Structure formats: C-alpha cells, structure tokens
C-alpha cells in the first residue's frame, strides 16, 4: 500500500519534471530561433561585407553584371518611405485614438476600433495590388499634376514634389505604408489613453479645460512614453513591410530626392531579386541587406517594447 503511493508520487514528480522540461525547451526555441537567424544571416552575409568593406554602406553602386553591390540606395529608400509613413500615420492615428476614446458615443467605439484594426488583417499583397492597379492610376491622373504644379515651385521642399506623374514611386509607397501602420499605432495609442485615470481628466475638465486641452495638456503628457512606444512599433512595421512596397515603389536602384520618382527599399530589393540572384556574391549581398533590415527593425522594436514595458510597470505600481 505505502509502496504503491510511493511509486505514484515518484511517477508524478517524474512526469512533472518531464512536463516542465518540455515546456521550457519549447520556450527556449524562441531564443534559439533569434540566435540562429542572427548567426546564419551574419555567416551568409560575411562574403559581401568582407568584399566591399565599409563601402557596402556608403557606395550607391548596384550592378549585378560587374558584381558591384552596395546597400545605400536600399537603406535610403527604406528610411524615406518609413518617414513618409510616420508623418502621415502619427497624426491620423492620434486623431482616431482621440475619436474612439473621447469623442465617439459608446456604441460607436467598438465598431470603429474593429474596423481600423481590420486594416491590419488585410494581407500586404492586397495593398500592393490595389496600390498599383487602382490607386496609382487615379493618383497619377488627378493628384500628382496638381501637387507638382502647386508645390513643385516652393523653395526648399519644391524639389520633393517633382517627377513624372506615373502614380508609383517613393511617395505612393510611403502613403500605403502609412495606411498599413495606422492600425498598429492607433491601437497602442487607444490602449494607453484608456488607462489615464479618470480623476486626472475630470480635474482638468473641472478647471474649465476644453476636450482638446485635456487631450493635449493632460492625456498626452501622461501617456507620452506609451505613445512614443506605439510610434516606434509602427516604424518597426513600416521598415520591414515588403509586398505592398514592392508593387508600388517602382524598383530602381537610383537615389532621387524627388518623391514621385521610383526607388527601392531593402525588402523590395529582396523580394524582386533574391530568387533570381546568380553568383555567391550577389546572394551574399542580398542576405547582407536582410541582416541590416533585421538588425534595424530589432533595435526599433526593442526600443518600442522597452517603452511600452515602462508603461506597464507604472500601471502595475499603481494598482
């Protein structure tokens, strides 16, 4: 009798140990995965870094025939499109978050939030098709000539708005990226706005503040860290977005200041050229681009995550 309980207990603790090890092993695969990605990409990118040295980052040459490759044009395009995306997406997301937390009647909040979040569910490639076949022709026909004619002559920024009215290019890519990151930025902003203590807002209203003043002088300063975290999250998404950009950016390795000119990004270069790359140096250069992208998004997303963790920690300390 006592022997059998002993065996059961022994069996139970063995099963516990096994279960715990198994789940821990699964959890460790996440770490293993990220390390493996870093190690493998670095190893495969090494020939390119070794061959071109620091010039890989500064030169603008991309010539598969004579096997000269460099990352500058792609990095430039990635940064510019993401910047355009943020310039458009941040104020829009702020407006939507303001609408669903302060302005909209209760019954409208859920449907509007859900609809905006559905923008994130639509696959990237659908944005690309729509951008190329539906948006670009209309944009080229209706908006571009007007923008070029009116803004194109302005000092300083005028040069940005020149270029052939073909609908596709760096600006179109940035605009579509903006639509794609709006749901991510909005949902973070909405969540952090929601946790602002009601007392704080009511005090401000009690002093006679308008809704806008409460938002701008009370809610926004209180949630600053989280809002920046949300913007960084959006930036991380925009940097790595592939298919939509590939469709509409025009895929050219030239660097143009004008936003209506075609360009490329790291991810669009990969999507277009990777499976057709011949020669080890070509493939290695493309993998090097992938490594740079991974590294940059890793840093941006890590900053986003750290900021949002700070918000969470503050929440935890309060309750």
């Amino acid at each position, binding site marked *: 009798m006592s022997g059998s309980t002993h065996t059961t207990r022994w069996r*139970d*603790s063995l099963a*516990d140990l096994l*279960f*715990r090890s198994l*789940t*821990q092993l*699964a*959890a460790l*695969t*996440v*770490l293993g*995965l*990220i390390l493996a*990605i870093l190690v*493998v*990409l670095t190893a*495969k990118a090494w020939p390119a870094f070794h061959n071109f040295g620091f010039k890989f980052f500064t030169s603008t040459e991309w010539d598969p025939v004579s096997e000269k490759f460099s990352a500058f044009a792609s990095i430039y395009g990635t940064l510019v499109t993401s910047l355009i995306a943020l310039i458009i997406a941040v104020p829009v997301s702020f*407006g*939507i978050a*303001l*609408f669903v937390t302060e*302005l909209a009647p209760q019954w409208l909040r859920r449907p*509007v939030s*859900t*609809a905006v979040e*559905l*923008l994130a*569910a*639509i*696959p*990237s*490639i*659908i*944005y*690309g*098709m*729509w951008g*190329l076949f539906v948006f670009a022709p209309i944009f080229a026909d209706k908006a571009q000539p007007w923008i070029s004619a009116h803004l194109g002559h302005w000092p300083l920024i005028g040069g940005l708005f020149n270029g052939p009215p073909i609908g596709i290019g760096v600006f179109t890519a940035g605009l579509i990226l903006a*639509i794609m990151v*709006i749901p991510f930025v*909005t949902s973070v902003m909405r969540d952090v706005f929601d946790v602002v203590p009601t007392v704080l807002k009511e005090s401000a209203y009690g002093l006679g503040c*308008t*809704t*806008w003043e409460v938002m701008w002088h009370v809610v926004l300063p209180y949630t600053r860290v989280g809002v920046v975290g949300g913007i960084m999250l959006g930036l*991380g998404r925009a940097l*790595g977005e*592939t*298919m939509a950009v590939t469709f509409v950016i025009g895929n050219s390795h030239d660097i143009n200041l004008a936003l209506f000119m075609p360009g490329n990004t790291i*991810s669009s270069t*990969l*999507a277009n050229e*990777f*499976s057709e790359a011949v020669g080890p140096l070509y493939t290695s250069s493309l*993998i090097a681009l*992938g490594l740079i*992208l*991974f590294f940059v998004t890793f840093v941006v*997303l*890590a900053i986003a995550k750290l900021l949002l963790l700070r918000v969470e920690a503050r929440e935890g300390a309060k309750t």
Partner: protein
Amino acid sequence: MTAQSRRYLFRRGLNLFNLGMSLLTTIFGLFWLAWLLWTLVSHGLQALNVDLFVQDTPPPGAEGGMANAMIGSLLLTLVGVVVGTPVGILAGTWLAEYGRANHLASVIRFINDILLSAPSIVIGVFVYAVIVAPLGHFSGWAGGLSLAIIMLPVVLRTTEDMMRLVPDQMREAAAALGAPRWKVTVYIVHRASLAGMLTGVILGIARISGETAPLLFTALNNQFRTTDMAQPMANLPVMIFQFAMSPYESWQHLAWAAALIITAAILILSITARLLLSAKTSSE
C-alpha cells in the same frame, strides 16, 4: 473683457477645429478600408467562377483556375499550424506557469514580442539559407517551416495571456486535491483557457495565410498540382504576386479572384477570433 472673450472664443474654436480633425482622420482611416474592400469585391466578383476551384493555373494567356495554388496554400498553412502551434502552446505554458518572476522568461517574452513584428521577408531569407540553399531546391517543407516560424510567436503570446487570465485559486484548489503540477496545468488551466488558446491559433492562421514574402524564396511556385512537400509548391499569395505583375489579362483576373478569396477568408478568421475573444473576456 474683450481680450478675455477673444481668448475664450479662440479656445472654443481650436477645440472645435481639432475635434473636427479627429473626426476627419477617423473617416480618412475608414475610407481606405472601404476603398480596398470595394476594389476587391468589384474586381474579384466578376472573376469568380467554379473553374477556379477545379482547374489548375493556366499557361500565359489561357483561361484556367487555381486549384493547385489552393491545395498548396492549404498544405503550407497546415504544416505551419502543425509545427507552430504545439511549440507555441508549450512555450506559452512555460511562460505562464513557470516563468512569472524569472529573468529568462522575461527575456523570452521580450524576444517573442520582437519576433511577432519582425519582417517576414527576413524569415524567408533565413529559411532559404538553412534549408533551400543546402538542399539545392525550393520546397513545400521550407515554405511550411517559414510559416511555422511566423505562427509561433502569435500562438505563444495568446496562450500566455489567456492562461494568465485563469485565477490562481483554481490552480490552488486542484493542487490541494493532490493533483501534480502538470495535471493542474493540463486538466485545469488549459481546459479553462481553451477558447482563448483556440483564438490564438485562429489569429495565427489568419496571419500566415496571407504571407507572401517568406514564401517567395522557400515554396516558390509550381505550375502543376502537387502534394509532394519536397517539391516547389504553388500557393495563392505567390500566385497573386506573379499573375498580378504579368501582362496577361486572364492571369490578372485570376489574381483578383484569388485576392478576394484570400482576404474574405482572413477577414472571416479575424472577426471570428475577435468574437471568441470578446465572448471570453466579457464572461469573466
């Protein structure tokens, strides 16, 4: 008095203006959603017919369907789910049950959240370097594996969140009855959070079924119908990419039809997941 009332009017005006802008930005956001969906319906519906589900992808210029791509997409997604789900659930279980105040767990949670938003094209490059390049050919396995890597963080995150919603009293009650830890986890906590975990899997499927970038260098595409995972495999996203970019009108029609089908499926999945989730959180 006048300066004061001017100031008051200015504040009222600024408030009205900015609230108006807030409404406008919301309309701006929803406008794109409506335009996208309208485009899909108007272009996709007219290309929709029974042949799509029966015939395979045609040669350039000819009519046909996309049965091979649908079968391929289903198989690739299946591999992604079958590989990604168990690992994600087990890892999420460890984080929720053993990793509450644990440095390693915090690091894993942190990395997982980064992996969740990491560019999927880099995952494709990684799988290419690890599987496709050594074997020397594109394959369905490589495609399925890259989808599994994208699926894993989604499932992990939801599993942990949902298991944490289970009150500790339930764990304590089961433990007090003498149940070993693993039984508490599997028979009590998992059972209580089953709907939530299922939501995670559905969200994961929604996420991977539209992924194109990682499949470009792994599963590639195949003009023919195959269920051999060791071969390059046709799939809807890559087919859409190639056909949409082609100059042939019949191919472009197929691409629109595929785009409509895939988006409808994904939207249905995400709305289902959302409903499950809201039923779950409102019942507690």
